[in-house]
């Protein structure tokens, strides 16, 4: 099967700064692909190159078999974009936003009205049809941006941090809608720094850091391989680390100290939790948490638990 997106040595430089540093990735039909990474990792720069907003500095980028440098218009006809900022047309109402946007795609007026009606229903915006954009809540604005991105029935949907800044209800509604698009066969590429979002939506993820893809795969595989099945969090003073490590030396576990916590990563298929808790009970700690490994652990293991402000 031909990939819908094929990127080779994709590079983006802004003057001295290399935002995207020669990355490769392949995305297939019906993939729900997530770019994860801290702020400044190059996620937004990558997605902006995908819709021709930002010209690539070097490399190769084919979307739906077309070269972005020569066929941007034909590519853009077939994709939908939810950009990081809500760039709705504040001069217009909800319905007008959809109709005017449809016109950019040369969708005939009758058809545009039909699609706008369907999309407003799908996104629970019918009651707001005649409202101006300023009158909408944050969640409604985001839903309208998403509705607008679907007006041309895109083969690929690009979402740059689709739910950042939304409250939990608003976020879950958008996730539900995005999941329901899967059955329609739309591929989806999103950037996020919410691990829960990636876990909810993506079947494949690429973790980016400092302009590079540092790992890629399905979330489950990557967590299993690079983190383990379970995590034991031990709140304990750093002075006791050495004692803990001696106690568990024979188990050959990966460990990591960050802040007030010592993390122990438990591989799959071993009933180590019981053994560990028994042994660690004797050492003075304030709290012990035993839980499933998550995408968050993977992300933090790969990009470092330090908070990097950029």
């Amino acid at each position: 099967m031909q990939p819908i997106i094929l990127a080779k040595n994709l590079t983006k430089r802004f003057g001295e700064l290399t935002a995207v540093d020669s990355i490769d990735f392949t995305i297939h039909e019906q993939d729900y692909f997530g770019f994860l990474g801290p702020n400044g990792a190059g996620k937004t720069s990558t997605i902006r190159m995908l819709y021709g907003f930002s010209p690539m500095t070097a490399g190769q980028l084919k979307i739906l078999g077309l070269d972005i440098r020569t066929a941007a218009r034909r590519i853009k006809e077939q994709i939908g974009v939810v950009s990081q900022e809500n760039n709705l047309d504040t001069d217009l109402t909800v319905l007008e936003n959809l109709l005017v946007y449809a016109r950019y795609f040369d969708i005939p007026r009758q058809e545009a009205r039909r699609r706008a009606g369907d999309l407003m229903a799908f996104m629970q915006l019918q009651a707001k049809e005649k409202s101006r954009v300023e009158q909408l809540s944050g969640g409604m604005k985001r839903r309208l941006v998403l509705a607008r991105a679907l007006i041309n029935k895109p083969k690929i949907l690009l979402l740059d941090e689709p739910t950042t800044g939304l409250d939990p209800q608003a976020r879950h509604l958008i996730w539900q809608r995005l999941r329901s698009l899967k059955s329609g066969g739309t591929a989806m590429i999103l950037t996020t720094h919410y691990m829960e979002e990636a876990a909810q939506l993506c079947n494949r993820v690429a973790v980016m850091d400092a302009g590079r893809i540092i790992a890629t795969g399905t979330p489950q595989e990557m967590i299993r391989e690079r983190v383990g099945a379970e995590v034991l969090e031990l709140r304990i003073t750093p002075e006791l680390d050495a004692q803990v490590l001696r106690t568990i030396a024979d188990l050959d576990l990966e460990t990591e100290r960050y802040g007030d916590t010592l993390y122990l990563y438990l591989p799959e298929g071993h009933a180590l939790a019981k053994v560990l808790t028994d042994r660690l009970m004797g050492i003075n700690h304030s709290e012990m948490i035993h839980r499933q490994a998550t995408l968050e652990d993977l992300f933090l293991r790969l990009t470092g638990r330090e908070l990097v402000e950029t």
Partner: protein
Amino acid sequence: MNDIFRIPSVSWRCLRVWQRDRDAYMKFFKLSLLGNLGDPILYLVAMGYGLGRFLNQMEGMSYLEFIAPGLVISSSMFAASFECTYGSFLRMIYMKTYDAIIATPLSIEDVVAGDILWGTTKGMISGTIMFAVVGAFGLIDSFWAVGIPLLIVLVSFLFASLSMAATSFVKTFEAFNYYITLFLTPMFFFSGVFFPLNRLPDWVSVFSKLLPLTYAVEISRALIYGKPSWIVPVGSALLLAPALFFFCVSVNLMKRRVIQ
């Protein structure tokens, strides 16, 4: 640098942007018209009737007659300029309309060209209404005045393009003061709208010869009062050339600004 001066590839799709701007305008056009036309009509009445009472004939006509053609033309200049400065800047920076549109099959060139076409249209709306007002005052005495709408198109297109070029450099709303106070307003006063230029000190008439509005005002007077001369074709060429030049340059400059 070279890519600033080349001919941009603009497609017919720029009309989609023009339609968008028109649709947004139609929602508030009464308010917008008041802003565009209040000033020139006030100038016509206050200066023409008010100041005109105290003045003898100017260049063989009443003061009202003298200033009417220039006010038609300058109303186009201001309407086109405001649209492609404040209007376009608002859409580009605050509303992010440009960003939203270039995610569709339209290119940034289409978007900027569409906005310039819309600015041109705004200038045409103002100029045409002012032309009608001047006609209602009974000030048009020549068949040659049929050329005025074409002149209005030309002036509107020139100032829409010029203003868009200014907008491509502007970082804040306040910075438009430079363009408006140091360029448009002096042009309004020193291009022969309100007084003849030939009896002023040499440096003033040299300065005024550098202002495109000067030619437009001369042409408008020649047409409205039926005294066509070489100024009509030559002046038109002197308006068209910079209009085309600044159209290309402004589209390229805006592309450089928006696409990074």
